[in-house]
């Protein structure tokens, strides 16, 4: 049986809103676990624009996406949040009553949490692999077409086609090479973004005839049932080549999809979660939505709006976590109590 992780709040998404929620909750003695599908904190800031300057964070005339995330991580350090990276929240089940909410949260990695409130800070949804628009690809997904390697054994003695020119495509080309029967790497140009030593290692394998490299794009797939048997590659020189394969791994980066949030029983409006503007609570008492994922009259998708929202949501979360305690509003500048929590007094 899976051990259940008991905590006050589960925060879904470790972008700027989710990270700052740790701070606002922490000041109120509320403990949090954060779950994010990405392998690191920062959400879109780290994934989409780590080097890009942001100009509208109050108090920072200019800060990069990564710079902001690094600072937020430092700011929440005193509250020792627990991160669960590379996992997607699949289900949120209601256990309690509207007055005393409680939830069971399950991830795709099999972890189970029990908490008193859920803070959905999922931004544009979850980053998921882009699926190439090749006719009929759906029916091979999960059996012959994979967007990540879960088990190396699935590739043993198979003819594998890998598509892409970045580190994911190159790393899996090199890692699966000893297992696979034959690897064919397909990329749209003879120029690779991956680390130079990986590119060199791949080119050596090609030069010694141990794998194939095709410069072009996959145009069609053929198979029987869910089993892939061949791919048609349109080469850049205009020629077309059929390659016998049993496995295909396309690496076209990530895109944002709402994902399982749609199945959590929350009201949705155009893939966003409607909330009130007093507590940022959803249609389910105890489930809050903050940052880019929520919507309300006048909503602006700004990082600073997310910060405001988590501060207000935290006040209501306190009532659910400590129903018998009165909450006194305090400032970090003057409260000895808050300064103790921050480790500065």
């Amino acid at each position, binding site marked *: 049986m899976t051990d259940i992780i008991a905590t006050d709040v589960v925060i879904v998404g470790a972008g700027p809103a989710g990270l700052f929620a740790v701070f606002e909750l922490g000041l109120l003695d509320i403990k949090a676990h954060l779950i994010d599908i990405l392998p690191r904190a920062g959400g*879109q800031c780290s994934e*989409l*624009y780590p080097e*890009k300057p942001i100009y509208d964070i109050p108090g920072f005339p200019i800060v990069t996406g990564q710079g902001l995330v690094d600072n937020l991580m430092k700011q929440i350090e005193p509250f020792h949040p627990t991160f669960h990276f590379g996992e997607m929240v699949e289900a949120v089940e209601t256990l309690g009553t509207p007055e005393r909410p409680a939830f069971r949260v399950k991830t795709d990695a099999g972890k189970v949490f029990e908490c008193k409130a859920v803070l959905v800070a999922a931004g*544009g949804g979850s980053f998921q692999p*882009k699926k*190439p*628009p090749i006719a009929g690809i759906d029916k091979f997904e999960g059996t012959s077409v994979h967007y990540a390697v879960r088990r190396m054994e699935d590739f043993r003695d198979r003819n594998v086609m890998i598509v*892409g*020119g*970045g580190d994911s495509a190159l790393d899996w080309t090199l890692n699966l090479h000893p297992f696979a029967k034959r690897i064919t790497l397909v*990329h*749209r*140009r003879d*120029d690779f*973004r991956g680390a130079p030593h990986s590119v060199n290692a791949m080119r050596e394998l090609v030069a010694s005839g141990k794998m194939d490299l095709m410069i072009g*794009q996959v145009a069609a797939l053929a198979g029987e049932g869910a089993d892939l048997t061949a791919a048609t590659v349109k080469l850049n020189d205009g020629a077309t080549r059929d390659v016998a394969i049993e496995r295909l791994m396309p690496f*076209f*980066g990530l*895109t*944002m999809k709402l994902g399982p949030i749609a199945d959590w029983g929350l009201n949705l409006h155009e893939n966003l979660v409607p909330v009130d503007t007093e507590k940022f609570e959803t249609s389910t008492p105890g489930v809050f939505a903050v940052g880019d994922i929520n919507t309300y009259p006048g909503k602006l998708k700004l990082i600073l709006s997310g910060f405001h929202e988590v501060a207000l949501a935290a006040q209501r979360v306190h009532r659910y976590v400590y129903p018998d305690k009165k909450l006194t509003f305090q400032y970090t500048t003057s409260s000895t109590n808050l300064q103790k929590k921050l480790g500065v007094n």
Partner: protein
Amino acid sequence: MPKITFVDSEGRARTVEAEIGSTVMEAAIRDSIPEILAECGGACACATCHVYVDDAWIGKTGKATPMEEDMLDFAFDVRPTSRLCCQIKVSADLDGLVVRTPGKQG
């Protein structure tokens, strides 16, 4: 203001006005052009504002920069006239520009 025409994957054309100095992507988003997602908001970080520049215009828009080429690796059905339209700056020279959008961005 310069006019830009977006032709979608089913052949429907929509013409919008674009401010000089802005990007072709910004003009598309302001007028809700379908088939342009621009998930990253113009940071050349997502390849979801992929367009095919009309052959007659590729001389004026120029081809993709090396950084843009890297990002185009994440787009589908990339062709020699492929660009990410967040990287095309609108100028008076581009009045009448025609670009085509692919059926799938992300």
